[in-house]
C-alpha cells in the first residue's frame, strides 16, 4: 500500500484513510499519531487490544464524538475532518456498547427514530423496510414490544438494527457481542459479514473473542497503549508472539479437525 498524493482523482481513492490521529481525554493523551492502513469497503475489520488500549477512543474519534486532531481522515476521497459528529453520521455510524435500559418505546418506534431523526424520509416504504431489517436480525416477533421489557441481548440486537438500517458507508461497532448468548453472537457475526459484503460497507468491530476475529473478520487491527501494533489478515496478526506482547498471555494457535484456526489460551505470562 502506498501513500497517495492529495491530487489523486476521487474515483481512484477508495475506502477509509486515517493518518496522524491524536486524541486527548481530560488532558491525557490516549491516541498519539495513530495511522491506519487503508481500509476498503466490503471488509469486516476486527479491532483487538487489551482494556485501555484505545479501541473505543479510536472509534469515537473517527465518529467525531470526542475532540481529536487528525492529519488526514477521508472516506472515498472525501475529507471528513471539517464535518461535525452529526454530519459525519451520514457516512460513519458509531454504535455505543449498550442501549439505555429504561426507554418506553416500541422496537418499531426505535427504528423509526433511527430513520427519521436526521430528516424526514419517504415514509411509504418505511414500515416494510423496518420489518425487513428486524427479520434479518431475527427479532421481527419483538416489533411491537417495548424496549424496557426486552432482555439485554434483545436490546443489543435492536441497537444493531438501528445502526444498519440507515445504510452508512462505515459502521463502527463497540463490542456488539457483549451480553449476547453464543447463538446470537454467531448470528450477529454472520449477519454483519453478509451485510458488509453485500452493501460494500466498511465495518470496524471491537471484539474480545479472538476466535470470532479469526473466523469472521477479513482483517484485524491490534492496538496497545494507544498505538497500532499489528495489522493485516487475522491469522497473520494473531500469533503466539503478538498475544504474548500485547495481552501478556501464553497462547497457542491450532487448527481444529474442521480445518479452522483456533486460539487456545494456556494462561497469563508472569508480570
Amino acid at each position: 500500500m502506498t501513500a497517495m498524493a492529495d491530487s489523486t482523482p476521487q474515483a481512484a481513492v477508495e475506502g477509509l484513510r486515517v493518518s496522524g490521529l491524536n486524541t486527548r481525554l481530560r488532558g491525557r493523551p490516549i491516541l498519539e499519531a495513530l495511522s491506519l492502513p487503508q481500509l476498503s469497503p466490503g471488509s469486516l475489520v476486527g479491532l483487538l487490544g487489551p482494556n485501555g488500549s484505545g479501541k473505543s477512543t479510536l472509534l469515537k474519534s473517527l465518529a467525531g464524538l470526542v475532540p481529536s486532531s487528525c492529519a488526514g481522515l477521508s472516506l472515498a476521497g472525501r475529507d471528513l475532518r471539517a464535518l461535525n459528529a452529526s454530519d459525519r453520521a451520514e457516512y460513519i455510524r458509531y454504535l455505543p456498547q449498550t442501549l439505555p435500559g429504561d426507554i418506553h418505546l416500541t422496537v418499531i418506534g426505535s427504528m423509526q427514530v433511527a430513520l427519521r431523526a436526521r430528516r424526514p424520509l419517504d415514509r411509504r416504504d418505511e414500515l416494510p423496510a423496518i420489518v425487513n431489517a428486524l427479520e434479518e436480525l431475527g427479532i421481527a416477533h419483538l416489533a411491537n414490544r417495548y424496549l424496557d421489557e426486552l432482555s439485554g441481548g434483545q436490546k443489543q440486537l435492536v441497537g444493531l438494527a438501528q445502526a444498519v438500517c440507515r445504510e452508512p458507508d462505515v459502521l463502527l461497532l463497540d463490542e456488539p457481542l457483549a451480553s449476547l448468548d453464543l447463538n446470537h453472537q454467531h448470528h450477529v457475526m454472520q449477519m454483519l459479514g453478509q451485510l458488509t459484503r453485500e452493501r460494500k460497507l466498511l465495518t470496524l468491530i471491537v471484539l474480545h473473542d479472538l476466535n470470532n476475529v479469526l473466523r469472521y473478520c477479513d482483517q484485524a487491527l491490534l492496538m496497545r497503549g494507544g498505538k497500532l501494533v499489528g495489522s493485516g489478515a487475522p491469522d497473520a496478526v494473531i500469533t503466539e508472539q503478538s498475544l504474548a506482547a500485547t495481552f501478556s498471555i501464553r497462547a497457542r494457535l491450532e487448527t481444529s479437525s474442521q480445518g479452522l484456526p483456533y486460539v487456545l489460551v494456556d494462561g497469563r505470562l508472569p508480570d
Partner: protein
Amino acid sequence: MPDAGSAARGHLRLSRRKSTGLALLGAAVIGLLALDALVGPAGLLGSEALRQALSGAGMGSDTALGLIVWEIRLPQALMALSIGAALGLAGAEMQTVLDNPLASPFTLGISSAAALGAALTLVLGLHVPGVSDSWALTATAFVFAAACAALLDGVARRARLGAAGIVLFGIALVFTFNALLSLVQFVANASALQDLVFWMMGSLARSSWPGVIAMLAALLAVAPFSMRSAWQLTALRFGEERAVSFGVDTRRVRRAALLRISLLSALAVSLVGVIGFVGLIAPHIARSFWGEDHRWYLPASALVGSAILIASAIAAKLVSPSFVLPVGIVTTLVGIPFFVAAVMRRQAA
C-alpha cells in the same frame, strides 16, 4: 414467528389506539373545563342558568351569573387549561433533554428562578420604558428562568454529575432561589408583600382574559416547534452518542428545548405564580400510557397537565364552601407523594 404483515399491522393498531387515547383525553379535558366553569363559591350552576349565562350577552353580560362565568370562572378555567398544558409540555421536554425522570421546571429551580425575577421587578419597581409593568415582570421572569436552565444544562453536560447529581444540584437551586425570594420578601413593603405571597403559593385567582390569551398564544407559538423536534427529542432518549449517530445535532436540539421550557415556565410563573409538581407528574402519566415516541408523548403530557391542573382547581373550590384554596397548595399536596414514589421507583431500578 409472525409474518411481516402482522408486525406492521400490530404497529398500526398500536398507533391507532394511541391516537384514540389522545382524543379521549382531549374530550376529558374539555369535560373538566366545563365542570370547572360550573362549580365555585357562588354555587353550582344548573344547566338553565348556564345556558342563560352563555347565551346572554357573552362577555358583556351584566347579569350576576354572566359576570361570574365570564369574568371569573371561564378565565380561571382556561388559565388552568393553558398553564397545565404549558407545565406538562415543559416538564416532558425537560425530562428528555436532561435525561432525568425527576426533572421539571418546579423541582429543578426554573420556576423559583422565574419567581425571583418577578419578585425583584415588583419590589424594586423596575420599569422598562415602553413596556407595561406586567410584561416587564414576565420578561425578567424569563431572563431568570433561562439563566437557570442554561446553568442546569451546563452543569449536566460539563460536570458529569450523573442523573442523581443533577437533581441534587437542582434542589440546591430551588433552596437558593427560595432563600433569595424570602430576602426580597423581607425588604418588601406591605402591598408588594401581598403580591409576593400570592406568587409563592401559586393561584389562579387573578386570572384575566389578557393573561389567558397571552398564555394560549405562547403555547400555540411554542408547541409547533416542540412537535417539529419530536423525532430528535425521541432520539435523545437513546443517549447522547447514539442520538449523534442518528445524525442529530444534540446541542442545538437541547438548547432550543431549554429555551421553550424557560419561555413557558416564565410566562406561567408571571401569570399565576409557582405551581408545583404538574410538570413532574404529567410526563410520567403520559409516558406510561403513550410511551416515549414524542409525537404522542409531548401532546399527551400537555393534555394530562391540563387535566391535572383543572381537576386540582375544582378540588380547591370544593374543599370548603366559603373559600377557594390556592391551587398550588393542592398540586403540591398531591404531588409530593408522587415525587417520593418516583424517587423510590428509581432507586429500586
